[in-house]
């Protein structure tokens, strides 16, 4: 068995907020091998973006990793100096953010930004870096690459900007790409192009993919593995095929039920009632219990661990039989008479 490209063990991250200390990540572990495609889904506030940032060392100044281990290509990041850590990370992992216009330097030509890593970090000559940048621009499907090399980010459309961001992420020839909602702000046909590009990269270059999103349909189409995140932990972990067919956590089940499917028209949309857990307060019991249709007394007392179930791992006391507990009209709830979000 090869060493995984990335291995995270029991990661904990805390954030200082005006409301107190927020435990944003409470024990996350994952392994990614070359060519894997892993989707991390969750609502906003679940901690999925923070996970990526914590691994890459991009946490904001009020956040910090409080415990856990991160191994990149077998090397424990904690044993490296700051400089060596950054060097290793930027060599092995590229990252694409949601908002390309914010991630790109507005006063630098896009070609120069793509050529920066080869030129500065890898020490290539200017000509070689320029050529590599053009190569990458063509790889990511930017037409008329030579012409577009000299443009500034604001002169490009949203879709092209995102491709530039992907090209920059690829410029160090990483073995793994992190994507933080990279297509959420894009139109659907452009999203399809960007997703297809990522799939091709995976096949052609054996690049691994960790894709953070709230869109289950995207995960269905481009990921093999899925991690469902809630309140700073994975509550379900398994293959996309198994998990979508046989979810073993009520939250996953609810998420699947609430995702509008373009192929079917249903009477009503299902929404999960209640609000996400307040992680500035200590967690007693399962954080999803207040919103869970299968919750029992046990659920509010003890937080379940992520354990193997029939087809995936699930953090639920009732993973085996919660489907029997679904109230008859639960998925056709009205909207009146409750405190609403």
């Amino acid at each position, binding site marked *: 068995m090869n060493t995984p490209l990335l291995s995270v063990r029991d990661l904990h991250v805390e954030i200082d907020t005006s409301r107190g200390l927020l435990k944003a990540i409470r024990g996350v572990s994952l392994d990614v091998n070359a060519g894997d495609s892993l989707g991390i889904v969750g609502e906003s506030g679940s901690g999925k973006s923070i996970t990526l940032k914590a691994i890459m060392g991009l946490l904001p100044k009020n956040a910090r990793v409080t415990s856990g281990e991160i191994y990149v290509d077998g090397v424990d990041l904690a044993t490296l100096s700051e400089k060596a850590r950054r060097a290793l990370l930027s060599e092995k992992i590229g990252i694409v953010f949601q908002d390309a216009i914010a991630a790109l330097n507005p006063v630098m030509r896009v070609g120069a930004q793509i050529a920066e890593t080869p030129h500065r970090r890898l020490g290539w000559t200017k000509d070689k870096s320029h050529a590599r940048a053009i190569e990458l621009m063509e790889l990511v499907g930017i037409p008329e690459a030579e012409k577009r090399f000299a443009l500034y980010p604001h002169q490009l459309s949203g879709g092209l900007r995102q491709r530039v961001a992907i090209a920059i992420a690829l410029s160090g020839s990483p073995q793994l790409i992190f994507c933080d909602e990279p297509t959420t702000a894009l139109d659907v*046909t452009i999203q399809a192009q960007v997703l297809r590009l990522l799939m091709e990269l995976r096949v052609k270059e054996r690049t691994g993919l960790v894709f953070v999103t709230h869109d289950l349909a995207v995960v269905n189409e481009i990921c093999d593995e899925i991690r469902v995140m809630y309140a700073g932990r994975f509550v379900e972990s398994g293959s996309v095929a198994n998990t979508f067919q046989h979810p073993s956590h009520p939250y996953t089940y609810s998420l699947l039920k609430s995702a509008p499917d373009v192929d079917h028209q249903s009477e009503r949309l299902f929404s999960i009632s209640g609000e996400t857990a307040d992680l500035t307060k200590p967690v007693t019991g399962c954080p999803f219990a207040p919103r869970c249709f299968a919750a029992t007394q046990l659920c509010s007392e003890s937080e379940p661990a992520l354990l193997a179930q029939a087809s995936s791992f699930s953090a639920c006391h009732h993973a085996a039989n919660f489907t029997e507990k679904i109230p008859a009209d639960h998925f056709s709830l009205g909207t009146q008479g409750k405190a609403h979000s």
Partner: protein
Amino acid sequence: MSEIVLSATNLSKHFVGKQSVIGKIRGKEPLSVPAVDGVDLSMPAGSTIGLVGESGCGKSTLGRTLVGLYPSSGGSLSLFDRQIGNDRSLEERRAVQMIFQDPYSSLNPRMKVGDMLEEILLFHKLADKESVQKRCVELMELVGLPVTALQAYPRQFSGGQRQRIGIARALALEPKILIADEAVSALDVSVQASIVNLLQDLKRDLGLTMLFISHNIAIVRQVSDRIAVMYLGRIVEEGLTSEVFNNPQHPYTKLLLGSVPKMTPGSKLGAAPQGELPTIQARYEGCRFQSRCPIATSACATTDPALIQIGSKDHQAACINL
């Protein structure tokens, strides 16, 4: 056949670029961009029409022209079979209301919710000083907010709650037609469903007609009876939702629907569409979709296709190659 409450015939909305003083002196025409360029749309009473399209297609502009926020630049609009012009009477204004996209800029931050509703109700004499308080309470109940919300400022609410307030504001005028302009796009996914459900319930209970503008095709499918697909200022396909989704005719509709990621197991991405989203030009030679169309022919460069019936009565598409 239900009556048509709102219909647009050959409706256009142009935006005129700024003109310098020198330009004026030299007699140059300012640049005029047709965001909506000859749209025919009919809204049958009680229906929900979904309007989809990508950035730059003009769906938002169409919505705002229909609601009367923008004066139209051409064509005509009829409300309840009566033509209406760019200057609407108070009654005409009340009949068509809009729900906006951004929950953070659609409410006056310096006005309490209750004051905002009272102002509208009193101005239109929909309530008098004695009954206005009661009416505000009713409106809060309609949208699922507690009565205490009336005393609060918008900043004290979440995105979903603000949208509910926006809906209450629209409903205060007792409109017949609601135009939801990306009403849930700025909300968290889990909140979107509750607002969509609310709109559907209200529509049913109050007998409204709704135009649901969105770039989220999956949600539009859930909500709409009929669907219209826009591209660069024109409607390129229109018909019953099930018809258009199951049997898309226009190459752009096929492209659009094919690009939406699906929830069905084993679904993998289809062939990727080519090309970038073009920006609106002042003038087109032939069909606007040529540059990205997989079935474009030489005839497409000279003919500007009109909407033609496809098979069943309730399905039209604008393409000469069908």
